[in-house]
């Protein structure tokens, strides 16, 4: 089972990649996906207070379990100019 993690903007530039596939088990949480990205791309600052995560385009808490083929987006807070 795998999920897709999408990075945008500055995070994509730092990681030099926009999409990351991650193998999961039945116990894998959104928080684990963040940790996975952090470990693979240590230059990325993924401070939990500074980002939002969506799963399949819905805002998601970090303790949400992941399912096969879920898409996780890591986003900054955007409030508009």
């Amino acid at each position, binding site marked *: 089972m795998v999920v897709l993690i999408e990075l*945008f*903007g*500055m995070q*994509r*530039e730092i990681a030099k990649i926009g999409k990351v596939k991650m193998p999961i088990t039945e116990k894998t949480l959104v928080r684990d996906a963040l940790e996975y990205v952090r470990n693979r791309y240590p230059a990325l*600052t*993924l*401070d939990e*207070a*500074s*980002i*939002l995560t*969506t799963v399949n*385009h*819905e*805002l998601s808490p970090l303790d949400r379990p992941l399912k096969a083929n879920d898409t996780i*987006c890591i*986003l*900054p*807070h*955007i*409030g*508009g*100019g």
Partner: protein
Amino acid sequence: MVAGEGALNSRFGIINSLFFDRRRNRIRAKQAGRGGTGTVMRKKGLRGIVVKSSLPKANGNNAIDKELVRQAGAKLKDVITRCDPAQLNLEAWGTTGLSEYMNKFHIFPINNYQYGQSPEAPKLFGSVFLDKYFSKKLPDGCYYGCNLACAKGVENVVLTRGPMKGTTVSVDGPEYETVGAVSNMGIFDPQFVLEYNWYCDEYSLDTISTGVTIGFFMECLERGFLSADDIGYDLSFGNINAVDRLLHEIARGEGFGRVAGQGVARGKKWVADKYASRNNVPVDEILAELNKFGMEVKGLEFSMYVTKESLAQQGGYGFALKGPQHDEAWLIFIDQVHKEITSLEQKASALKWFPLIRTWFNATGLCKLPWIDVRNPEAAGTPEPAKNTPTLAYYVDYLNGTTGSRKSLQDILDDSERLQLLQKMINLRQGKGARASDLIPLRAMGPVYLNEYQSRSEYYDGWLKENSGNSQLPESMEQRLNLLIKKREKAYQRLCDIVYDKKGYTPQAIPKRETMIKFGLMDEQASQLLDKFGE
């Protein structure tokens, strides 16, 4: 402050505020871009205003409590320095970074807001401007001392078009809105964004209104309401040469530019008259069709966000007293993406609170971005993190330290509500204040034509099922489109009812007498105006 010839020859002229930037060793400009302020200035025969001040750069306000001001500034600086690099990184990317996020969620305007996403959009992402164009390692604040410094600049741009072709210039920007204005005309060329930005500034044209107006005429051509002969050339989506030509015509008041320079509201009437007389059909019938995709409210063109899937932002644009500019409410992400305000009641509450605080920023002349686009980590522990109230507390201290007042955040919101009511009364007096003036084009609520529905048919079918109790959907796509349109129109009208009630207005969007009295604004003049509207 100056307004150039474009401000004289169009209705969407801007005022350029010029200052000498020692770091770049050149004059830079910041634009007061919306609503035609530069046009008003030029129509009054005023070309420029020179300000010579002996006030010191620091403490020019002569703050009452300098220490409180210093502390508020230090706290804000600390949050920005710690958090911006890990969030939007506006200091490095400017606002161009937004294009990528907007495109991802179908919010980036393409071809007169028909679509919110394009496979060509990556050519206009922030990374392109950062890698190829922006001067790096130069703090680009709009004023000395800004800690966010998101106003970017590009040096040594050789113009490839227009009367200044071959000249090397410096561009102030681009910002997200200018990038969106160019994609809205179906163009995805970053070099053209720079040149469009530079010429609009030089002529004193609003990049937003210019792009939206041209996009409107492009769609009129695409749908057969105009012919290339009416315009004088082929103004198709994506035609850079045609846009370049029209831009200079607008600025000079020449050719089709005389029509386009009047903006979308008057452009609709011009197209309807022309089409109706040629085809012997009623003008009102054509006007009704053009109203569906002519992207203006109260005579102002929309800023660069596709609101089809965010009812809250539809209201944010529709209720904005100056017209559809997002500086009164930008709720797309907390509504459409974060889904933090799902009920009508929550959307309406946000549509009362955010315009109040944002109007306060506008009234005091302070920039909103350090508050709203850099999330304070402490906000996570508050009931409504999107309001970022821990940072707002610094602004309250800054106000109190500067003026000697002892206001709370609620006092500030009350001050702002009083100001908004006054603005509302001015709108009423000018014939733009009642419910009909808050109606937005159908294009802002959802897909108008089949090509738009078709581009996201799976999504729209799903939306319809979810909002029809999972009942059987009509067979044809046209029927499903019509059903969706009806539901979207009904939702917007329902939102109007709830928001007006929250604001203390009647269902016709007229302030109630008790609301006016509460804020000390009821005098004879106000009373007579309310009489006129039956309140």
